């Protein structure tokens, strides 16, 4: 059984459809990379999985449980996944340590001592040990995003959703964030990520999905998508990315 199974998901905004019947299944330990132009529905799909958006049709199963059921406890379902946003969304009034331990302490009822110990371990693992007491505005963008990833990891999710996590960073800082994602993959984390970093996508993804106008147009291995895309729209998109020298 797939860890995550998305079936026929629709999302409408102001009369137009952003997602038009998307099907996607993700196996445990699989890394799925969503590519596509801005507005193709990549971020909306991630937000639907995290239940930040209510789907207008279709179903999403996580570990066999339907999380789009009206009766489902949204908070309960969200505990099983972590999401990281493009703009970090750290809480500016809390230190790094408090940002990371908030959910473990208040949602998962872990004691402060244990939560902080685990947070410090994670920070050390990702080279941020000395930043535990710092406030987010004292950190670089790359450091903030690493903290945001750690914050999502601290609740031990079985699925990580990464939404354009490097788009707001300057190129010099992108590397340190990508390094963390590589580590997560090495640790067997199941991930869905949207990205404009095609080189990275090709390297890290087990599966690449191309979205176009809210439709999942093509799905395949990175090799197949990047060297031999079947759909003309995929070819067109990859060529335009290549032209802007981001491949």
């Amino acid at each position: 059984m797939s860890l995550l199974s998305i079936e026929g998901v629709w999302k409408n905004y102001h009369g137009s459809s952003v997602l038009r019947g998307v099907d996607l299944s993700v196996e445990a330990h699989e890394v799925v990379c969503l590519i596509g132009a801005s507005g193709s529905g990549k971020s909306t799909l991630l937000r639907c999985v995290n239940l930040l958006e209510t789907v207008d049709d279709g179903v999403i199963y996580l570990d066999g449980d339907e999380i789009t059921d009206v009766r489902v406890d949204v908070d309960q379902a969200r505990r099983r996944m972590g999401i990281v946003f493009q703009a970090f969304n750290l809480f500016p009034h809390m230190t790094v340590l408090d940002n990371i331990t908030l959910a473990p302490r208040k949602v998962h009822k872990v004691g402060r001592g244990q939560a902080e110990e685990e947070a410090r371990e994670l920070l050390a693992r990702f080279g941020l040990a000395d930043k535990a007491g710092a406030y987010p505005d004292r950190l670089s963008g790359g450091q903030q995003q690493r903290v945001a990833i750690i914050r999502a990891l601290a609740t031990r999710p079985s699925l990580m959703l990464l939404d354009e996590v490097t788009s707001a960073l300057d190129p010099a800082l992108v590397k340190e964030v990508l390094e963390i994602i590589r580590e997560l993959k090495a640790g067997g984390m199941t991930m869905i990520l949207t990205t404009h970093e095609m080189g990275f996508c090709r390297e890290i993804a087990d599966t690449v999905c191309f979205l176009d106008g809210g439709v999942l147009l093509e799905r395949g291995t990175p090799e197949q998508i990047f060297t031999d895309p079947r759909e003309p729209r995929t070819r067109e998109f990859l060529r335009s990315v290549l032209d802007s020298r981001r491949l």
Partner: protein
Amino acid sequence: MTAQTAWVKSERQAERERLRRKRSIRSSSIATTSTVLLIVLLVWVFTNSPGWPRVQETFFNPEQFVKALPDVLSGFLLNIKIFLIAEPLILIVGLLVALARNLKAPAFFPLRALAVAYTDVFRGVPTILVIYLVGFGLPALGLQGMPTDLATLGVIALTLSYGAYVAEVFRAGIDSVHPSQWAAARSLGLSHGRTMRYVVVPQAARRVVPPLLNDFVSLQKDTALVATIGPLEALRQAQIHAASTFNYTPYLAAALLFILLTIPMARFTDYLAARSQRRRGQ
């Protein structure tokens, strides 16, 4: 992987929406039931208290209510007048003082100091004292052209007192506009004044609408404080009635009128807050 071109609602989605509707009906009926229960409980507690008959007689006497209402109502028109005149004046004073506090050039130091002194003094002094000082002190100066009409003096006093609060609200709004907006405007060659006028104040004003309306709700009822210097507004009229009958129901009539005036204002504030929330959500 083909997808539909147009959305046709699936059976599952229709079922989901049915369920959502059922739940919303259930939650609104729970809300109604709990509200009714609470009201019944409160009424029961009050009407069963040992002193209730006397309280009812002194505060909730229908006869006295009907007798006092016309006078209180005519007095209340004066409250509304004071309020309507004071409000725009307060906005102007408040904005000017806030702008004066933001003047950075050294030549404007006296103006800035004056603005600081003004807000410090008038926020510190209780409104009722300001009303006494202005109501009795200003006419006593005997200056030519000084108004002697009590309601006008009341308006001046309220404007002085509330202008200080509103100035601080405006200043907070101006300070909350991100420095990048200043940088962008100044980089286009706009002067300090133009930056304020075209870029900063319009953004600040939108942000401070809810706290401003809150101050105005407060102003509406503080017009009753003007009663202390004598004009025949609602509270004064109620006092006159109460003094002759030893029944406090006229105060209740005045209170009701004030509530009737502030409720629409409060709902309007809610509406504006909800609107800005919606806009930010998009």
